[in-house]
């Protein structure tokens, strides 16, 4: 099959990926540095029979994609930090009501309006814990333009498979960068859809019928009787205050992700086999880190890298195993140490963890990370 080779922007690749995954509905409120995603969706969705709505704000945007998904349409919104903050309440609603939706957050410097056109990676913890209550989410982090395509497709697949919100956590560099990409043909992609019920008779919308504890999801408007509420609910979907119902629901929601962590987790490695100083990074920071690791190797230091493509669930086991056989782990990120906290927790003091932070709105220069690797190697 012919493959497309072209110069493509990260935001563009994300949109093309969403369309390849079957996106039918986009609602959003444009914000730098994610705006190209809204623009392209507005252009492309009508051509494939889908819908684009520019909403009055980000709260409404998140509500609209949840509504559309409930009718059976694959749905997405894209935003940046300020908008992602506003979407948190609805993100929790999607988690509890088990509505598959994809949120794209192209990170810029925050808090608040921050630096609108400058890159940051400060929303790692917000993506995991921004909405209240324990709740399942999946967070993917593309490290180049091609992965903006691949991981957006995967975000839809995971979101549909487990009926959870999936977040594609990008940053300004990844979103705006253009590079040469070769995209797979549509026929090469595996596209998943939510598990569907076969009969209206006796349909219980929140009975956990599949192996992973994921209930079967009927599209609204097709004759299934179904109640959706942000209150805790039993298998019929109607509210319940019973402790045993609440406990069962909460634990089932968490288990959907926890039990499947081995198949969800995704990372790539570089020179880890004989590595003494490991770098753990993600997103655009990992591009600088890769350059630093190669420079360190050239200087005779046994450096390597583990690049996270899923941040949540966090790959505890992989980090623990790595920490047991290296001297130190260097964690460069464009925040004050959010992933480093997880690395410290998962490595259980096996190895020294060095935080390398950059919060001035600029991407790391490779030498900055190289210096940290040199220091850790001492």
């Amino acid at each position, binding site marked *: 099959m012919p493959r497309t080779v072209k110069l493509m922007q990260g935001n563009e690749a994300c949109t093309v990926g969403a369309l390849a995954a079957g996106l039918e509905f986009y609602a959003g409120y444009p914000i730098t540095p994610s705006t190209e995603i809204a623009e392209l969706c507005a252009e492309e969705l009508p051509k494939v029979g889908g819908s684009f709505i520019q909403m009055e704000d980000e709260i409404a945007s998140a509500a609209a994609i949840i509504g559309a998904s409930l009718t059976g349409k694959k749905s997405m919104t894209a935003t940046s930090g300020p908008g992602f903050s506003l979407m948190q309440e609805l993100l929790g609603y999607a988690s509890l009501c088990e509505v598959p939706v994809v949120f794209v957050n192209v990170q810029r410097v925050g808090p608040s309006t921050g630096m609108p056109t400058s890159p940051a990676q400060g929303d790692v913890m917000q993506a995991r814990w921004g909405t209240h209550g324990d709740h399942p989410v999946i967070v993917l982090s593309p490290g180049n333009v091609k992965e903006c395509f691949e991981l957006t497709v995967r975000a839809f697949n995971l979101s549909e498979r487990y009926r959870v919100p999936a977040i594609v956590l990008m940053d300004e560099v990844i979103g705006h960068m253009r590079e*040469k990409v070769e995209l797979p043909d549509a026929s090469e992609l595996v596209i998943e859809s939510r598990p569907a019920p076969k009969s209206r008779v006796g349909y219980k919308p929140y009975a956990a019928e599949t192996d992973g504890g994921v209930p079967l999801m009927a599209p609204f408007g097709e004759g299934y009787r179904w109640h959706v509420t942000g209150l805790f609910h039993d298998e019929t979907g109607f509210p319940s205050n019973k402790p045993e119902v609440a406990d069962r629901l909460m634990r089932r929601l968490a288990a959907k992700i926890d039990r499947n962590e081995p198949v969800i987790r995704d990372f790539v490695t570089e020179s880890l086999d004989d590595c003494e100083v490991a770098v753990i990074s993600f997103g655009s920071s990992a591009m600088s880190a890769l350059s630093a690791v190669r420079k360190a190797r050239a200087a005779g230091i046994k450096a390597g890298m583990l690049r996270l493509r899923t941040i949540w669930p966090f790959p505890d086991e992989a980090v623990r195993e790595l920490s047991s056989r290296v001297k130190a782990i260097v964690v460069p990120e464009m925040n004050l140490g959010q992933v480093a906290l997880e690395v410290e927790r998962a490595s259980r003091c096996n190895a020294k963890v060095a935080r390398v932070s950059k919060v001035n709105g600029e991407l790391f220069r490779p030498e900055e990370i190289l210096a940290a690797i040199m220091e850790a190697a001492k």
Partner: protein
Amino acid sequence: MRTEFRLSGSGGQGLLLAGIVLAEAAILEGKNAVQTQSYGPEARGGASKAEVVVSEDDIDYPKAIDPDFLLALTAEAYRTYGKVMGRGLVIVDASVPQSPEVTARTVRVPILATAADELGKKVVANIVALGVLGRVSGVVDLPTLESAVKNRVPKGTEDLNLKALRRGWEIAAAAAS
């Protein structure tokens, strides 16, 4: 070999587009290319910078570290990025006054005047500059640049932009000699 370009000026001059076309031309020639940008919140005005890295090999770090070529179309961009230039070549618009702070090798090319006076459209200064960069760097051929320009400029402006590109290619030769 890695070749780094930094295109600088003010927002609205179209340097981002010039960077995109340069990267696309490199890809059309089978090379790898990465283009990044940095700009302020303004739609026009404010400092603007586009960077392009071209290489036969894999490109890990996407930004320019020690640019081989700096293009500067404003006095502000010339001073800001000119003084941090190392081994590379500064290509500055002829209207920009020289600064003792910039010690790197420099060529002065009448890019803005060529666009405004000769071609009658100052908006094509970015494509004139692209022609200059293409010729001086030797990274891409003129026919490839022409194809990339045709792919990326607004419909109906192809002829004007191709003229601007070729004119840039010509004045580069004059500046270098």
